[in-house]
């Protein structure tokens, strides 16, 4: 039995996941999915910024398009910190594909003309 707080939305339901991966305490379906994943393969979306050239702004906000394994957070951060982008860029542009074979891309979170 594992006790967790669901982080999918601000409500923060208190979940319990038993050894057969049955989730209780969730108020919605997403909490069940989260509870199962969190005990088998916890993942997180990473957000950060990268160097931006050719613009009055110096940083471009970015995120992983999908959550990546929690154990790889710092490895993915190291890859993000190598990225340099030149304006123009559009929100959603893929800056780095399939980062460290996680299946997740690093994408731009802002459009810069």
């Amino acid at each position: 039995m594992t006790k967790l707080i669901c982080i999918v939305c601000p409500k923060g339901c208190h979940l319990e996941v038993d050894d057969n991966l049955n989730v209780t305490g969730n108020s919605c379906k997403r909490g069940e999915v989260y509870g199962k994943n969190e005990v088998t393969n916890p993942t997180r979306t990473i957000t950060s910024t990268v160097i931006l050239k050719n613009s009055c702004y110096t940083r471009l906000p970015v995120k992983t398009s999908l959550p990546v394994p929690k154990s790889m957070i710092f490895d993915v951060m190291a890859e993000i910190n190598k990225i340099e982008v030149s304006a123009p860029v559009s929100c959603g542009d893929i800056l780095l594909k399939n980062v460290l074979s996680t299946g997740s891309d690093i994408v731009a979170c802002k459009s810069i003309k």
Partner: protein
Amino acid sequence: MEKNYEALYDIVVIGGGSAGLAAAISSYDSGIKNVLLLEKEAYLGGILNQCVHNGFGLHTFKEELTGPEYAERFIDELKKRDIEVRLEATVLEITKDKEIEYSDTLGYHKIKAKAIICACGCSERTRGQIRTPGDRCSGVMTAGLAQRYLNVEGYLVGKKVFILGSGDIGLIMARRMTLEGAKVLGVAELMPYSNGLNRNIVQCLNDFNIPLYLSHTVKRIIGKNRLEKIVICEVDDKLNFVPRTDKEFEVDTLLLSVGLIPYNPLLEKIGVAMHPKTRGPLVDSDYQTSIPGIFACGNGLHVHDLVDFVTNESKKVGECAAKYVLENGFDASKVLTVTPLNGIGYILPGKVYLKDEGTIKFNFRVNKPFKDVSIIAKLNGEEIKRTKKPYLLPAEMVEYILDMKLLKEGELTLEVSND
């Protein structure tokens, strides 16, 4: 009479953050075609620009966006409409007659509006406001300022960090600075419970093994030029220091995340009545301040934890301001006052102009955590509605909706009851 202003607008929105954007869009969509938005920065979006973390827009878009992405959706919507926008335009003063003085790159301007919507956001409480004793060294700053340095300018303010206050911005900065290679040694919270959302405790502190010291505060700040050391200690239930509980941390940075206050110098200057608890203006059910035709929304009205709430509220405010302009004022014949009782810190609005139809949405915060309680609404002493709540937290604003048909003139009270 000779007019001494450059232009007359139906509605002028001050501030281009999430509140101002939503208010301008909804004013326009409610039939006002002469809307001006003034923003002091060179870009729209306000505080969202520095909130690069995700968690925005779950209610509005049913997906988790980062702050800049959320802002961009509204900026795109704004641009689809014929709404005039002036950037780098700082409003210096407004008057009761709704004249507006602002300065931009072209110089000084004076304009007039039929209605003004103030959406100027909030400011952070600083060290002076919480009186932390010790040296006046560098390395002590608010969490939001550090967030701006890091996320907008790309500059990490310190390597060894401690955070005072468990507000969400502090928690989010604990993770953000850890990701960028700083060591965050802990977070101290004066109260026995966290002021931040549970999800942020989990994903910002627990994920990185950052300890949270509840019922603790910073007792001393030590450093010659740059911060060198802090001493924290436990506090008792009267918030007095508990002897022999000192812990020292060698840090170069102390971030303060000790609360936000609505930022309203423009309204204060013209004597708009202020709410003692929220520190924002007092508004009625049409979000009008004590001066007719001047409206307020967003964090300038009261501090919201969720941008979705800011958007919803501001949309409503845009509609109300449009109605005010189109109908030359409101019907204020039937008034209901609203008072918070047991367990409730504040309720907005504090005054409702009753209408025959529709619903009215209240926002309130409790003043301490509760579990398995009911919220009881009473009209002139008689119970009219009882709602069960499994939990209530001061960190989470509650939306509470009542049918106009349930209400009549007099006093409405809301309270928390243990059943």
